[in-house]
């Protein structure tokens, strides 16, 4: 179905928008989105600036923050995919539509601050052991084998422990996001 944001919403010409302000408002949300797509921090930085370059090269209409954020995400996503492929990598591409739906549902403020707050709260509710496992994995970038050694369990056990912890985090975050 076709729908046009112009039907009910006032439009603001791009000339009314301060590019620096636009970047300031949307940089973090876009950066987080690209990280979620699979970019490392430096790649996300690159794609963020290329995304803004792309949209500021041409006129565009501003409707509201959410529409602009969604537009930026789409551009960023396309850049990410095409540059990955240009590098000769076969990219496991999520269905953009589905990914966008999940992102919009969970990251309702477009920038991810609410999600991050919810996640920090949920992390505090994990057992020390589970949290330690995740810290080793995501903060210290340790291999699963090393995590298993530190926890004195098998590699498979470490995998299960982290997977269960992440499942609890997901459920907890979803509850909190839904509540807010």
């Amino acid at each position, binding site marked *: 179905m*076709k729908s046009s944001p112009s*039907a009910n919403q006032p439009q603001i010409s791009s000339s009314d928008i301060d590019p620096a302000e636009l970047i300031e408002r949307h940089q973090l949300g876009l950066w*987080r989105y690209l990280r979620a797509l699979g970019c490392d*921090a430096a790649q996300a930085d690159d794609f963020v600036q290329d995304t803004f*370059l792309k949209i500021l090269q041409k006129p565009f*209409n501003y409707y509201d923050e959410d529409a602009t954020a969604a537009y930026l995400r789409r551009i960023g996503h396309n850049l990410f995919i095409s540059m990955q492929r240009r590098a000769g990598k076969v990219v496991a591409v999520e269905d953009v539509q589905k990914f966008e739906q*999940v992102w919009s549902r969970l990251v309702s403020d477009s920038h991810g601050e609410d999600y991050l707050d919810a996640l920090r709260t949920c992390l505090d509710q994990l057992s020390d052991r589970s949290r330690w496992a995740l810290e080793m994995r995501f903060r210290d970038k340790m291999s699963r084998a090393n995590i298993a050694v530190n926890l004195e369990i098998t590699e498979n056990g470490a995998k299960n422990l982290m997977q269960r912890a992440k499942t609890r985090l997901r459920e907890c975050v979803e509850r909190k996001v839904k509540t807010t």
Partner: protein
Amino acid sequence: MTDAHEKILDAFLEEALTDARPGRSAGDIVRYINQHLESALQDAADAAPLAPIADAAIESPGPTQQQPVKRPPVEYEHAAAPSRDWVSIVSIAIVLLVATALTIWLLLPANDNGGPGDNPNIVKQLPPAAPEKNDTQPAPVTPQPDDNLAQNTDEVIPDNRPRKQAPSDTQIARRDDIPEDQTRLVLPAAWVRNVSVADDPLPPGDMAGQINNQLADAWQSGNDQPAEMLELRNWANRLGSRAMGRAPAADELEEINSILVQAKSPELIREDLVEHFFNKPEFRAEFDRYWGQMLAWELMGISPSMQATDSDMLQVRDHLRQRIADNDAVDAMAYELISAVGSTASDHEEFNPAASYMVGLLKRFGTRELASSHVASAYLGQETQCAQCHNTYGDDQLADGATQQEFYEFHAFFSQLRFEPLETAGDNRYYVVNRNYLPLAEQQRSEAPLKYTGSDGQEYEAWPAVGEFELGKNGFVAKVDRRTELANMIAGSPQFREAVVDFVWGCMLNVPLSGIDGHADPKMLELRSELATQFAANDFDLQWLVQTIAFTDAFAVGVGTEEQLAANNPFLGDAPRFNVFYHRLENRRSAIGSLAIVANAYRSGEVEEVLSAGLLARVEGQTAMQPQTILPFVPSNDNQWATSPRISRQLDQIANSSMSRTQKIEHLVLAALGRPARDDEIEQANLILDNSENERTALQDVWWCLLNSVEYKLPLGVR
């Protein structure tokens, strides 16, 4: 499919546990953008004006008294002088954006919802609308501001456009029916892929492994002995020719040979070769060019033997080449071509190279009906052309599958399509646009049937539909953009991805998976379906598809023995199982045979007769061989490559080099065949050179002989 929330959680977890933040500030990004804007402005200032467009012959679909649409040029933002100060740059950019918006606003009509926001260039930049797609039923469309829209009793907006008569499908909207202030584009909706593929995307090697297992099963159950695998050297030649558009040249063989001599398994060497070809910029450019041309030919119904040079075809070809170079998805390309609106003149502010597609189709097929039926054929694999006159369920019983009603229902998707002549510097160019299709009297304008006379002489009505996809009866563009909806449906359909897979497979292996003239092996159709699903899972990536097919055993087998071919020959009506690399039987020409023919011709003084007989030619830039007789499945760009300026320069270099005559001959043999020249070949080539007054010309003839040799063509599947 990877869980989207899990990916989001992982990213946020890392951030929560490491306090990671963007490494660049907003100020850094602004500076980066300014540097690029400055560079772009400088480039624009340096750019040469566009070359004029060549005349294009098209039978005007409208009345001869039509007035050309002249559109005042708009100012482009890069017209301003660059500045090195980033603040100035941003200011200039903003001023230019405002100027552009104001210019467009002034040029466009003020209507109920008009103004700058309706500028199609700006609309194009809108955030994508949230998809609410219904798979089978036409979705209601939110009314949009549209100056073409006439008031209907319920929800459409009035217009004051005078209508002398309601246009019919066969009558192009008259220019005097459309006021000057109401000629703006109605752009296709922002496209969002509507394909959900349950499978995880597999890399080419893994997918080819699955295909190989299926092929092995099919060969075993059909008692088909696979032909011997090609030598790796010949496989590399085939890969170059079939995947990239040309075989490696002499100066490229050294790198390839270094890959071939590695102490690795043939599978790993093939992987290295594919990586080499796809990573080498020269070959990557050939890949883009080759597949851009092949796709353009296929989608426009042009066979290589037509040697089409039509400007619209060339525009579409170049457009597709660029899209492939950008690694764009094939379904997005299809959507763009089918739904395109805009000008076909490159110096027009609403220039859209994809718009040339519909113009080119009309030129190629002559009638709108045939052009639309080609869309069904090329994109959905549905042959409907017979049904224009013959009804499966009617008197004739001639058409296979499609009824006359179905033919016209498909054609009805194009009932809003109009071609409006543009006068741009004397060029015959068109403005492709969708207009309201209103064939009935004013009271009945909520319905827009396409009327046709059936094979029984009765008059019937058809509304846009294909299979279970129906669009309803409304003909207002803003209510239902028929062509765009069709493009959406096609791009997301399994039939489309299977058609692409079939086409690419056919280009690379001479025979499509669906066989020739409908003679298909069910196992191959199953294979096609799985490959098509993975093609979609891999984001409709042409590069992925070509690499996957290249890794299959079907691409690696040799041409086999005559007995093997006789047991399963799709050109004689068999369903292909690809246990041999199929070829058409042509006159055998070994390198020595070809060289001997020309050497004798030189000696007898009949060289011109021999050369003009279609075997060989030495005239630069002309077709040397008759593609339809000698190169039925070798892309004609092999010819183009052979006569290309690059080859010409190389021949010049060889002729002018300090190499001995024998060394020159050896060099050419090595370039064409990838092996040292044999003594008898050197002898025959020397005879050609001895009898020629011009060494450069003789070397070119030697080159042509080599390209005509069975050794050169055998890996390509042509004898």
